[in-house]
């Protein structure tokens, strides 16, 4: 085992870790908002929208993330320059990057998985609690905001922790669309130094540590919630 390359590559590794974490944070936070909307649509939306939302979840959960990512990056990416004016717009430097497409693909994918979790959590909130809200004269929107959704999120919390870890484990796919995430740094180190296992081990340790941290943080949040059993 030869880890001497670390001294040379640590700035790059740090940058890669930053990109990986950025992808995770962006996809989880934006994806969560999208998931809330999708789940609410399925539970109480008008029928066509509910159908659309469940169709979206089936589609995104039924196809590999890698294919979705490539569809966005190569497919949409090759169509974008055809839109007149887009090359000169201020958005172009962002739209050109693999990072943008990876972030979008991961967000859309995470939202689909999370929406299914939230949907079943919304349905398993005890009826009495919602009726209590109605009895207080809460409007539909207040009821969702103050009772239904917070209660559903608490129910779903352990599953959400698992989904975030799964999302972290999906981020190395970004390397296939030229994002310099942690895994692609390891890939580059392998090409430069011809060491196969050491960079992979280092990166694996990082992922294991980060998932342990995520599990711990969620455990702490769960413990803070008042629960009466």
């Amino acid at each position, binding site marked *: 085992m030869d880890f001497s390359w670390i001294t040379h590559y640590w700035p790059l590794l740090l940058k890669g870790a930053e990109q990986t974490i950025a992808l995770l944070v962006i996809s989880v936070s934006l994806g969560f908002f999208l998931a809330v909307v999708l789940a609410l649509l399925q539970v109480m939306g008008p029928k066509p929208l509910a159908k659309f939302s469940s169709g979206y979840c089936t589609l995104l959960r039924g*196809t*590999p993330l890698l*294919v979705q990512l490539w*569809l966005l990056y190569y497919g949409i990416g090759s169509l974008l320059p055809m839109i007149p004016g887009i090359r000169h717009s201020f958005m172009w430097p962002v739209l050109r990057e693999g990072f943008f497409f990876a972030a979008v693909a991961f967000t859309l994918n995470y939202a689909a998985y999370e929406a299914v979790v939230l949907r079943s959590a919304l349905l398993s909130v005890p009826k009495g609690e919602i009726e209590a809200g109605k009895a207080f004269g809460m409007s539909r929107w207040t009821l969702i905001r103050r009772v239904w959704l917070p209660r559903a999120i608490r129910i779903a919390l352990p599953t959400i922790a698992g989904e975030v870890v799964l999302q972290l484990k999906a981020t*190395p*796919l970004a390397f296939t669309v030229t994002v310099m995430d942690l895994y692609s740094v390891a890939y580059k180190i392998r090409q430069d130094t011809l060491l*196969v296992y050491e960079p992979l081990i280092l990166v694996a340790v990082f992922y294991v540590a980060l998932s342990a941290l995520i599990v711990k943080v969620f455990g702490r949040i769960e413990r803070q919630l008042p629960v009466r059993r």
Partner: protein
Amino acid sequence: MDISTYTSLLALEAPGWGSALLKGTITTLEISFGAFLAGIGIGLGCALGKLNGSRTLAPVLNLYTTVVRAIPELILIVALYYAGTDSLNALLNALSFESVEINGFATAILVLGIVQGAYATEVIRGAILAIPTGQIEAGKAFGMPATMRFRRIILPAMMPTALPGLSNLWASVTKDSALIAVLGYQELAMITKLAASNTKFYFFFFCTAALIYLVITLCSNSVFDSLERRFRRGQVRLG
């Protein structure tokens, strides 16, 4: 762009990519099926090992399932691919044979099978634990030997509990098989990428691939649903 362009892109004859995509789909299904079976085999062995665990075996199996489930699939696949080829060649060299170029198909199945095995271990272990002890004790009371007890009681009794988990595993292996494309092996995702970059119809080909994967998933779901109905026949339904 009209419809005839698309049909000619998917034509089965040479300029069209239809037959290549079909072949890729079959390869994907073969890899998935092989890895799924390997995973169940490994999972069954490890689950039984964990349940009847000796002091030395149980920690090793725990390490395997924990490590595999904590590391991203892509990294595992790449690491196992190199570790597999390296160790096989080291073994061959030690036995004074020539180094060989390893069959991509077998490696794909083995690598995905090892990943699946870790998840399958937990699914099967949980399902076996869910069997009421009385049923197994009844088997013992009848004087059934361990293998017969496994065949006649444990296996059929754990199936209803294990099936939803196994169905999830199958869904994830059909999608994880796309990761094999990263190693350059020509399954559906890789062939789609080739077709797309050759013809420049990126959007069209990736949509086609997504559709094929979706059809695989939806068909598998209905198969697993009917399997579960079959294994649950005679059970009292709750709710």
